[in-house]
């Protein structure tokens, strides 16, 4: 029975991870390419140069292919909330529903309306209105992303709500606290930044292919100029927003930060591992070194996490076992408080069943001060708060390394732009960097989501409790159906995209 239950949670988790990761193959290109197309069209409207119009329409067609194939793939996650994660869905109440509803309304009215004008209104509306529509599609897509990330940010740092034991749901107390939570805002900026970089890599990569083939040289070079300029600006922005994200993680999810760095024993003036290999045999509390090999940057982790080179950064062992000298509460103490919260909820249930209003109030009063630890009540041991360290560590380092590579790539492309066709190696690097943007973005999601395990909602609900007790076989079947469906969609997108690119800038839209 226990094995079966674990299997169910693992399949439910795998299914959600699969759909989220596949969905995020389509989304970032929409986010990034929409702004690049808007910039290109702005140049066309400003210069009245018909060549810019042709360039804009070419990239807009590729944007349409990605949009058409990716649209609605995110709905599958909403299906999963109702079926596989019903405990979670009920527990979060309207806090999760409100941002998603706003996103749905925005996506439908704003994007779908202006999307039609953007693609099909070239000769039906004025240039100005068309340009406005293109910008509104870009802004609308990004606003949609904002509300999704507000929902995700709340799971990482739940604020602006209170728990009602009577309905067993969280109720929103402050919409602004939820929408403008520093974690949500940092997450939004970093995520859309990764989408912009993917968009820019896509444009410079395809442009590089054209230049290598000697096709549509002027248009490819102009596209390269826009893509590389946009890419350089947004990749620098991505580094800054990454810094803010890390700061927020240090403040609100210190276990995740420690896992990102494979950091076991806390210290002041902590270093960052620039390049390293984890010791796979390292266990919490043993004396083995955490790294088999490392190149570190002194003080950088303290600076990154706390904006202070001498700040103490807690390691996994400090967070699991506590560190009195640094005022860090261990997980064992939190588990005790969590069990008290669950016990108070149980007392509330008994009082409710017997209709004893006074006992219900008493239980509510017991619950309130420890509700923030509620999820810990379901953990068996302090060590359970530690996420899979290796996946989190390597994903984080891959993401960061690629982020810096992109800055260098865009800078080199801009530097060599006047004679870019002579730099074949650089052009090939640009072409083969297209998938690297996706790898970096997916690695970022793995850091965010694997790094916050075991929590579905930070400190309030572990993943094992969030899942619905349904037949694991059904989840397994639907997992494979999704895997097939998404893979077919991805292959279709790549094939249609490649065919359209092969037609060239003047190949028709």
């Amino acid at each position: 029975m226990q094995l079966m239950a674990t299997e169910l949670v693992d399949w439910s988790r795998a299914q959600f991870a699969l759909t989220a990761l596949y969905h995020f193959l389509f989304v970032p290109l929409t986010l990034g390419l929409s702004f690049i197309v808007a910039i290109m069209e702005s140049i066309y409207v400003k210069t009245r140069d018909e060549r810019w119009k042709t360039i804009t329409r070419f990239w807009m067609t590729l944007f349409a292919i990605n949009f058409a194939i990716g649209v609605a793939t995110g709905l599958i996650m909403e299906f999963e909330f109702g079926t596989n994660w019903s405990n979670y869905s009920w527990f979060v109440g309207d806090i999760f529903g409100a941002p998603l509803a706003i996103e749905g309304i925005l996506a439908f009215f704003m994007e779908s309306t202006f999307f039609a004008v953007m693609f099909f209104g070239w000769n039906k509306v004025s240039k100005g209105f068309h340009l406005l529509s293109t910008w509104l599609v870009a802004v609308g897509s990004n606003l949609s992303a904002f509300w999704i990330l507000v929902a995700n940010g709340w799971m990482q740092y739940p604020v602006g709500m209170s728990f009602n034991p009577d309905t067993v749901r969280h109720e929103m107390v402050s919409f602004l606290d939820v929408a403008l939570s520093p974690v949500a805002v940092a997450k939004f900026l970093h995520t859309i930044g990764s989408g912009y970089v993917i968009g820019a890599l896509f444009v410079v990569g395809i442009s590089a292919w054209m230049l290598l083939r000697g096709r549509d040289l002027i248009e490819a070079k102009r596209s390269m100029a826009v893509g590389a300029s946009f890419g350089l600006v947004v990749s620098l922005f991505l580094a800054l927003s990454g810094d803010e994200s890390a700061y927020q993680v240090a403040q609100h999810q210190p276990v995740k930060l420690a896992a990102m760095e494979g950091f076991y024993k806390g210290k002041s003036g902590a270093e960052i591992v620039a390049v390293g290999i984890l010791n796979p045999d390292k266990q919490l509390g043993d004396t083995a070194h955490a790294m088999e090999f490392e190149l570190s940057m002194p003080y950088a982790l303290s600076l990154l996490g706390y904006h202070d080179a001498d700040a103490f950064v807690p390691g996994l062992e400090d967070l699991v076992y506590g560190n009195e000298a640094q005022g860090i509460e261990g997980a064992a103490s939190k588990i005790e408080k969590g069990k008290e919260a669950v016990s108070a909820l149980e007392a509330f249930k008994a009082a409710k069943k017997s209709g004893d209003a006074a006992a219900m109030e008493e239980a509510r009063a017991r619950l309130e001060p420890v509700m923030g630890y509620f999820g810990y009540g379901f953990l068996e041991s302090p060590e359970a708060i530690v996420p899979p360290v290796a996946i989190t560590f390597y994903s984080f380092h891959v993401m960061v390394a690629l982020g810096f590579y992109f800055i260098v790539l865009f800078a080199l492309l801009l530097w060599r732009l006047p004679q870019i066709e002579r730099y074949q190696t650089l052009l090939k690097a640009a072409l083969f960097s297209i998938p690297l943007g996706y790898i970096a973005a997916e690695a970022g999601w793995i850091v965010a989501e694997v790094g916050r395990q075991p929590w579905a909602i930070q400190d309030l609900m572990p993943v094992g409790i969030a899942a619905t007790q349904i037949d694991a076989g059904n989840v397994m079947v639907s997992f494979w159906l999704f895997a097939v469906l998404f893979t077919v969609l991805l292959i279709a997108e790549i094939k249609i995209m490649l065919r359209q690119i092969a037609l060239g800038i003047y190949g028709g839209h």
Partner: protein
Amino acid sequence: MNITTNTELIIMNTFMNITSMYIEGFASMRLGRRLWLIIAIKLALMFGVMKLFFFPDYLHQNFADEEARSLHLLETLTQGNNHATDGH
């Protein structure tokens, strides 16, 4: 009454214009038909197969009203009727 009718007309016209812009636009694209086909197959699979056979709303399907659903969750959270052993 007239204002309502006019507003309705404007909304209807806008809706029709947007719809026709989509239909004409996609039809005139060289790859429009293929994209429409992909969208249609995808939505049919998602709503006609996935949602229907694999993704019922568990709480709505198994519990009659809000009270029953909240009681179910209360039971789940307080009776150890869970599958979290190590939290993961």
